[in-house]
């Protein structure tokens, strides 16, 4: 097991290098450089040259890549080209905790709703309960965030006045250890609507997957045995079945985790949350190479780590799977 983990962690290195290299090369080959235009004006060539020199962009791409990797090894992600005076470290330190808070809360909410809902639907297969659960789940998946978010704001904030319309309850200067928010009333008031918006879609996917997979497990021999022994109902399913049926759920959870924690662009934008999500698009449209690389790296590391956790969780969920 330990050997397996070490081997997997060693595998991170080539994977990350490949991602970094490919991203770096592609980002640099999009037409239009970071300093070509100011608004609609073209910068004078000499000024552009100076800026290029200042940010080492005059060097060959592979040299830039090498220098960048060298800096990253010393945890220096470089300066932002667009928000001049800020470094990528500043940006990540500021935005990642916020996105992570939103993401983790939404994911917990999604699991808390999704797994019970899926279980009930499976137990009551082909009944009205099942159909309604299915229907609600599908509604949840197919309502886009950009519709649900404004609707929630409209109903719960403008009409009922229960929650503030937008923004996040804390800013990065108020976090414990730079990541944990204070559990204040204000924090939850701001977190609730975006959490629900983001969590709904995920809970729906989780519910559907749980149902499908549980239905399959229920028909397994050991479950039949358990039922034949006279064990019935929920207990059997939860104790014996659910754990095994969570494999497909765990599989999607890995990438879901990375995606949700690095921020949902749409939810963050609609609720005016200063998270990381927008940088996935804005850094590209600004040709802010160091920021592109920074957010890509964070995302990739989370993803690879998430997938490792998922693979490890297989062994826990289904003891018959062994790693050697």
């Amino acid at each position, binding site marked *: 097991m330990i050997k397996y983990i070490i081997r997997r962690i060693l595998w991170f290195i080539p994977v990350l290098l490949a991602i970094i290299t490919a991203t770096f090369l592609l980002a640099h080959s999009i037409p239009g450089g970071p300093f070509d235009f100011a608004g609609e004006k073209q910068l004078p060539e*000499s000024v552009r040259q100076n800026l290029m020199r200042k940010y080492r962009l005059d060097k060959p791409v592979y040299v830039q890549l090498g220098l960048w990797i060298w800096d990253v090894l010393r945890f220096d992600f470089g300066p932002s080209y667009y928000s001049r005076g800020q470094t990528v470290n500043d940006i990540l330190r500021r935005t990642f905790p916020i996105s992570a808070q939103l993401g983790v809360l939404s994911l917990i909410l999604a699991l808390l709703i999704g797994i019970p809902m899926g279980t009930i639907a499976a137990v009551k297969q082909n009944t009205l309960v099942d159909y309604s659960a299915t229907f609600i789940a599908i509604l949840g998946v197919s309502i886009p965030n950009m519709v649900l978010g404004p609707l929630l704001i409209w109903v719960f904030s403008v009409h009922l006045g229960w929650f503030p319309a937008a923004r996040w309850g804390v800013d990065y200067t108020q976090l414990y250890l730079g990541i944990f928010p204070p559990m204040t009333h204000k924090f939850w008031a701001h977190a609730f609507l975006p959490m629900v918006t983001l969590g709904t879609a995920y809970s729906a996917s989780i519910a559907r997957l749980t149902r499908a997979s549980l239905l399959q497990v229920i028909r397994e021999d050991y479950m039949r045995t358990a039922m034949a022994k006279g064990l019935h109902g929920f207990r059997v399913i939860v104790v014996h079945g659910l754990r095994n049926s969570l494999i497909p759920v765990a599989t999607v959870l890995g990438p879901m985790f990375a995606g949700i924690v690095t921020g949902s662009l749409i939810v963050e934008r609609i609720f005016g949350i200063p998270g990381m999500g927008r940088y996935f698009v804005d850094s590209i449209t600004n040709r802010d190479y160091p920021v592109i690389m920074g957010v890509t790296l964070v995302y990739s590391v989370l993803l690879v780590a998430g997938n490792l956790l998922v693979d490890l969780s297989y062994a826990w969920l289904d003891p018959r799977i062994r790693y050697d």
Partner: protein
Amino acid sequence: MKGARIGLLIVAVMGLLLWPALGQEKVVLHYNLGTEPPTADPALAEDTTSVNIIEQMFMGLTDLAEDDYSPIPELATSWEVNEDATEFIFHLRNDVHWVHCDPATGEVTKLDRLVTAYDVEYGVLRTLDPRSGSYYAAVLLIIEGAAEFNSADPEAENFLELRDAVGVEALDEWTIKFTLRAPAAYFLQIASMWVARPQPQWVIEEHGEQWIEPGNIVTNGPYCMKEWVHEDHMVMVKNPYWPDWDKVDGNIDEIYFTMVQEASTAFAMYLNNELDVGPVPLPEMDRVKADPVLSKELTIRPIPCTYYYGFITTKPPVDDPRVRRALSMAIDRVTLVEEVTKGGQIPANTFAPEMIFGSAAGDTSIAPWALPEEMGGWGYERAVEEARRLMAEAGYPDGEGLELLLMHNVSEGHARIAQAIQAMWLEVFPKASIRIETQEWKVYLTTLKPDTPIENQPHIYRLGWCMDYPDQNNWVHEVFNPEEGSNWVRMSFDDPYVGEAIRRFSELTIQAQMTRDPAERQALYREAERLLVDEIAAIAPIYYYTEVVLTKPWLSRRWHEINHYETWVLDMEAKMAARGG
């Protein structure tokens, strides 16, 4: 007796000192910037959000008057201009202090430094310094030696010489002189811009690019920065040492800026009383106008920007001015602004809008087809008739054989307009084939650059232009002059159809630059506009922008080109009552 009087005096002084703390609540304005300002550095700003922030913190040599954008005194109390408008001497006031704001307490301290002509000189030179990499240094290149310095190699031996040769010089602490390389009557307006503001050399040298962060930054305007949590909010507090508080009637002690991008969210925040000023999302427009409360809080006012479609004038079939004019005529601008953009925009028949010096907006002798009959124009029906005739004359009856590519950058608003105009064109020229293509902004600009091979370019592109300074030189000359401007429409003197007109257009805008007499310049620019929009028809101006804002009843504000919060008055009691209830 004497003791009692002193005692009374002490009580009175204490009372005065304590009065603000005891009696009144702080007056706080909640304003949404809509986006994180990319910078607060006057040398680097290029966008309206940053400029809005900078305007509060740094005083300009001149300011633009609220109504006609004419230059009025700000940091400079008076100025002298020589005969041919190449030398400008500004006399500065001597009562403006640099101040620093404590980020923890919000307390403003007066530094033992006054803002002097040397600070302005440093500011101008820092903007021009190639090492700063200022995007907007270009507007200062009219200064003698500025272009040479701005494009110098910082490692070159003569770098410092070039720096000294720039035509900006502080003659003494309160006098600064600019020498220009060519006459430019509009330099007084340029002097109001953020690129020519005083900058605190000692702070910049100490903190480098981080000098604009709260705690580091040292400013001199009516407000100073207390807090800037990037992308979340910024807090500015009143600078009590700003000398002109007795000349304005504003009462705002603190401004809380938010940075919510999504218009519909900001609108919801406005309705929730979380904002004092709010936007109107496009789809809500009809409803807001019909709403008895909101319609009273709504203000629509023109701003100095123009939305236009440009033609690549050397790319067939739009190389034929008849085709270009026919296309321009077939745009139903009135319907477009009423039914699609809905923000009270004004149909445009010229490039520069009304408030720009030298503008001919609304002049019915220029492109009258663009104007409705009540504005003295042709009206759409007559324009369509003429458009059909011209198109047939050019060899494309009903648009037969006409294949056009219309390109715009990715944005929902542009997409709506493009689809509407495409539909209008197809209505008038039913047999034409008109495709729309969208590109991501920087790719789009790369495509439009004049050195892109013409086969990679569209026939028609969309762009907008907003003023840097309110003079036609910033418009027809800088944007379209074939020799000295950007000229993305690719006008050329060899044009087989209108080469002569293009040559005249070029001469006119250059001549106008050199002319001092306002009436004469006005006439030159009018003719240049006529050539550009009507005879050459290199662009189809579509509308002049407006600003659409909602303002809460407890806020009475003024309408400067850039917000002057020091002139706004907010009834805090009414605001608190609304927020509480």
